[in-house]
């Protein structure tokens, strides 16, 4: 039903639309020819109540996708009330004045459609793909919950959804070995006052404390048309679609102006070393994270290229050494995670059994030191761009991916077609820039997280350096029987 930020991001990465990258592919490095990147047709306008509409017409399949973005995420929460944006996403599927509890999903499915919603730190979206003749049903459903949700929100439903969200957390976090890795990393990377320091799914204690009034206030503050963007892509008629939007969304009154949280840039003065134990794990893992930049920084393109230079394929620098030459790891993956106001660069390693995390960390450090010392070759930066150009075209297949691209471009870049300019900017990245961002961002201030099976603290990377054991109480209890029986 719902996805929290990390999995949503992974899904988008898989769709390759966030890849960044270039429109220039060079087959064989011999001749350069431009990959033709389709420009999505676009009609953009704003309703009198402030809602932005992005319409993209394409009749090549009798399918339409719509997505409604509310520019609110866990970043808009306050300490002590975390998890709200995501809990709210659940409430949005529990009915509104003219849609009974549970009816939303059954109605969409009976129309042959699919739906979901997702919450990140920065935004929440609700989306449907439908046979194109059903477009107005999708619009009606989305408008009904924007206009009338609070007529159906009650204590009983709130209590039930809280339990379902707790089950979601158990599934994704608590029952997974090292499932808390990303939240302990965020908590170490950002000061507690920074809204990126808490997980999107929030604290279960906070969720339990949420009152019906809290939920209602959240809706009134953030679920207004002036905080929403609707993107519709597929087999539509522009004039008729505009009429549908006017009819169902037009009468919804404008809400209050929204004060956006100002999130200061983050750097770490020094290295933080963390250790996580888990009784259910059989092998260790290692993760290193550096604070980087948000979506508005032009450096994100070079950081993205840097991640690929390190681990894109078997010839990439870090993958080559760790997986192929030294064979210390079964896999390694580097990526630059970009949020609206901040980001982090992460290297994640799954070691071979018996490989030393210390040795792996040494290799990572030496490979990054070599990137900083330079120079990088044009070829190792170019290959990244070739992949990005092709995957941008293949990533436009699903109408929902196009709608999401348009909404994301507008909300974060002010340009629905930013996937094209992003490609151009990524293509312009030079080896020297990749080297510069490595020097600038991959410095001493970082979070090194050693994840080891419970009790195997001897496997921690550089165990003689001071570290903080961030193992949650539940997993610590997990270690108890092992100590008792051995």
């Amino acid at each position, binding site marked *: 039903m719902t996805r929290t930020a990390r999995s949503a991001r992974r899904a988008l990465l898989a769709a390759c639309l966030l890849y960044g990258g270039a429109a220039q592919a060079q087959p064989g490095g011999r001749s350069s020819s431009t990959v033709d990147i389709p420009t999505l047709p676009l009609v953009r306008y704003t309703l009198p109540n402030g809602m932005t509409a992005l319409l993209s017409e394409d009749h090549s399949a009798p399918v339409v996708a719509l997505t409604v973005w509310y520019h609110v995420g866990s970043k808009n929460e306050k300490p002590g009330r975390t998890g709200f944006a995501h809990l709210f996403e659940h409430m949005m599927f529990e009915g509104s004045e003219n849609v009974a509890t549970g009816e939303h999903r059954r109605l969409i499915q*009976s129309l042959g459609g699919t739906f979901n919603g997702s919450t990140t730190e920065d935004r929440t979206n609700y989306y449907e793909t439908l046979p194109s003749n059903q477009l107005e049903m999708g619009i009606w459903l989305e408008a009904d919950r924007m206009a009338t949700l609070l007529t159906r929100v009650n204590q009983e439903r709130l209590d039930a959804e809280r339990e379902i969200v707790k089950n979601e957390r158990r*599934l994704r976090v608590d029952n997974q070995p090292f499932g808390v890795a990303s939240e302990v990393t965020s908590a170490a990377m950002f000061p507690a006052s920074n809204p990126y320091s808490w997980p999107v799914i929030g604290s279960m204690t906070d969720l339990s404390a949420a009152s019906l009034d809290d939920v209602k206030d959240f809706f009134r*503050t953030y679920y207004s048309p002036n905080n929403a963007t609707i993107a519709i892509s597929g087999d539509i008629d522009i004039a008729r679609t505009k009429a549908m939007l006017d009819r169902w969304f037009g009468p919804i009154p404008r809400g209050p102006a929204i004060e956006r949280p100002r999130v200061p840039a983050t750097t770490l003065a020094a290295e933080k070393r963390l250790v996580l134990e888990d009784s259910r794990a059989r092998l260790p893992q290692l993760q290193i994270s550096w604070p980087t930049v948000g979506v508005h920084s032009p450096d994100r393109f070079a950081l993205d290229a840097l991640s690929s230079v390190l681990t894109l*394929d078997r010839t990439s620098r870090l993958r080559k050494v760790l997986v192929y030459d030294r064979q210390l790891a079964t896999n390694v993956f580097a990526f630059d995670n970009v949020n609206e106001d901040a980001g982090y660069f992460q290297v994640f390693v799954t070691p071979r059994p018996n490989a030393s995390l210390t040795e792996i960390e040494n290799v990572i450090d030496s490979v990054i030191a070599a990137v900083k010392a330079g120079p990088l070759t044009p070829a190792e930066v170019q290959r990244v761009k070739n992949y990005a150009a092709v995957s941008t075209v293949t990533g436009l297949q699903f109408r929902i991916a196009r709608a999401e691209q348009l909404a994301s471009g507008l909300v974060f870049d002010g340009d629905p077609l930013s996937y094209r300019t992003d490609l151009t900017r990524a293509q312009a990245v030079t080896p020297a820039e990749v080297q510069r961002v490595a020097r600038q961002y991959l410095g001493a201030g970082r979070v090194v997280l050693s994840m080891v099976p419970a009790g195997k603290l001897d496997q921690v990377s550089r165990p003689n350096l001071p570290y903080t054991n961030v193992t949650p109480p539940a997993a610590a209890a997990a270690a108890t029987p092992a100590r008792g029986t051995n």
Partner: protein
Amino acid sequence: MTTLTRARRTLVAAAALVGAAMAAGAHAQTLDRSRRPTVPAAAPFRMPAVEMRRLSNGIPVAVVQNHQLPIVAVRAVIDAGALQEPPEKAGLAPLTIAMLTEGTTTRTADQLAEAFADLGNPVTAAGFTTITRNFDRSVELMGDLLMHPSFPEAALARNKANTAAQLRRLREQPSFLADHVFNAVLFGPAHPYARVATEQTVGGITRADLVAFHSDWLRPQNVKLVVVGDVTPDAAVRGLERVFGAWPAGGKTASFDVPAARPAAPTTIYLLDRPNSPQSTVLVGQVGPSRDTPDYYALETMNTVFGGLSGSRLNSNLRERHAFTYGANAGLQWRRVPQVSTLRGQSDIVAAKTDSAIVEWLGELRGIRGERAVTPAELAFAKDNRTASLPLRFETVTQVAQEVANLLQSAVPIDFWDSYAQRIGGLSGPDLAAVATKYLDPQQSVIVVVGDRRVIEPGLRALNLPVQVVDENGAPVAG
């Protein structure tokens, strides 16, 4: 602290504004939202036209033209899987396939990687998706992988070691453990469907095994190709013939004779202890018919009422009504004709409610068999979902390629989808109850629970069902 202050200020301002806005909205609102829009009828949906061709050496090629975007998807359906492995070499098939990208007789693995990077798309033995102009070059690389692997010894050693590590990590996952135990108890531990690669079986695989497996099974008679996208059938076949037409005959032809499953037994709970699991992973299921059964349509549609979607009965009960789980679903795992299928549901249940969830689950099984007859609304829901969703199923080039590959993989006639809507449309409520009664039996089901035994065992023991504690391979353990 500053964040908190700012947020409080925002909320106060918001509350004031919302009061005013809602008053204005109430005045302006004359729209009757309870009157749902009437939508136009859907235009008749035409299934993508599949053109079947053959290469000169007999390899069937399915081509579907789709010019939405300048892209092409190619898929290879290869009958060289777990059923073709010697039992003591479990893991040989995926290892052989993985080793195809480790070098060919004319290209090293690094040269292959360079070639993929020049194109901007990876190519594997299973196929690729790329821009139209990369089609011919990608086909050539795909052919090189499939036909001319060099299987370097050093790469094999690395792949074996990595596979062993991955197998160990898999056993950290409750879903893998549940799956493995389920197949072992449902089919029997020695059955091919219950076989999994282990560090021991993978450790014993040699380069000679790979060479033999490749020589035996990666042959034209075991291969089918699918091309979908911005290409004509003539151009597609020309490009494939140039590369794959030279693939020499020989080797063996894959067969799909599989030993019978264990006879069904009275419903038993197989409990695998996974200490400190806040949720229990629960599977409930049994053996089903082959993909070519005439009951296929009724079974799938019955399952849509029972557990296939979030709007189905199982999820409505376990998630919506009881909040035991984040989600529950059930489905049919079809295999290539003539093999049997598996009917199976799965959910991750909060530990303390594991027994309650099983009670509800078995109740839903009795319900769909007739205690709670399928209502006209449920029947319409399931049939409408299955037929109205066809445009979404074939929306993109990669989806069409996958659907066609699935038909070829399952040995189902290529015109399967042409009569699909009609077959679904003819189903009645009693048709659904009949297949539920025939195939779903709450008295002869396998229930696998992977969870924290200390927390959940007392409740499970109180259910008046046999409880068998098992190990990671589904074998009974004392206690």
